């Protein structure tokens, strides 16, 4: 059980890293792109708009925690 938890923790750290908000916000942005495209709205611009915002929030959070 302990090894299973360590295995899960390793993959969580490997994929998610220090800030779980980054994958969460990225998922929301990709979901919104897909939703807009499904509604017939061109949404290629959404991710380039969302990424700086996500990165900046993550940087501010990292600086606050140091």
């Amino acid at each position: 059980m302990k090894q299973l938890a360590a295995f899960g923790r390793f993959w969580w750290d490997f994929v998610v890293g220090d800030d779980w908000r980054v994958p969460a916000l990225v998922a929301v942005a990709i979901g919104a792109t897909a939703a807009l495209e499904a509604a017939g709205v061109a949404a290629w611009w959404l991710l380039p708009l969302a990424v700086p915002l996500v990165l900046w929030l993550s940087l501010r959070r990292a600086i606050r925690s140091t």
Partner: protein
Amino acid sequence: MVEALTIVLAAGVARGWRSALAGLGAATLVLAILVAALGPALTHVPLQALRLVVGALLLVFGLQWLRKAILRASGYKALHDEGAIFARELADARGAAHVERGGVDWYGFTLSFKGVLLEGLEVVFIVLTFGSAQGSIPLAAAGAAAALVLVAGVGVAVRAPLARVPENALKFAVGVMLTTFGIFWSAEGAGADWPGDDAAILGVLGFVVLMSLLFVRLLRRERLEAVPV
């Protein structure tokens, strides 16, 4: 790869090259098996779904790399010191008890094996994601193998940790590339059409570079202004 070389060198110097090289060989074999097993399986996934998942993973991974590189470049996080890491690993390895299993020193073997496996997983991840999304895993694996030979060759030549490699600049570049392809493929996977098709990658690349440099500049200025005179 630079970190893995530091660990293997420390294991080799402190515990003997036989165990360090056995650990390196075993970890490389596991990584090669992972690529050989997962690579062909990924080619059966529909391209749009693959690009959505791969793009999202690359974007999350790239933003992790970019965040660390920006924090280091702006002075909020200490730069990697391979010399200090080597000295620490060496001291730990010299202090550990000698246990022999299967004809090799177990500490040296596991230190080298774990170091190469953990660092190599990032390389496997990049090989599988880039290779599968572009339809050529063998080419991506060959690129990674060439980089491995280069780092190992330089390591053998200098017989010291690669302290002079501009590691943060390399990580910055990797973070930029992962984020760029992550944005491009995840948007395509979500159904978006880029203006200019594949040529849009260059535009996204320029945008990510400018954004990253701007963030470094802003944070560096902020940090300097916060230091009392």
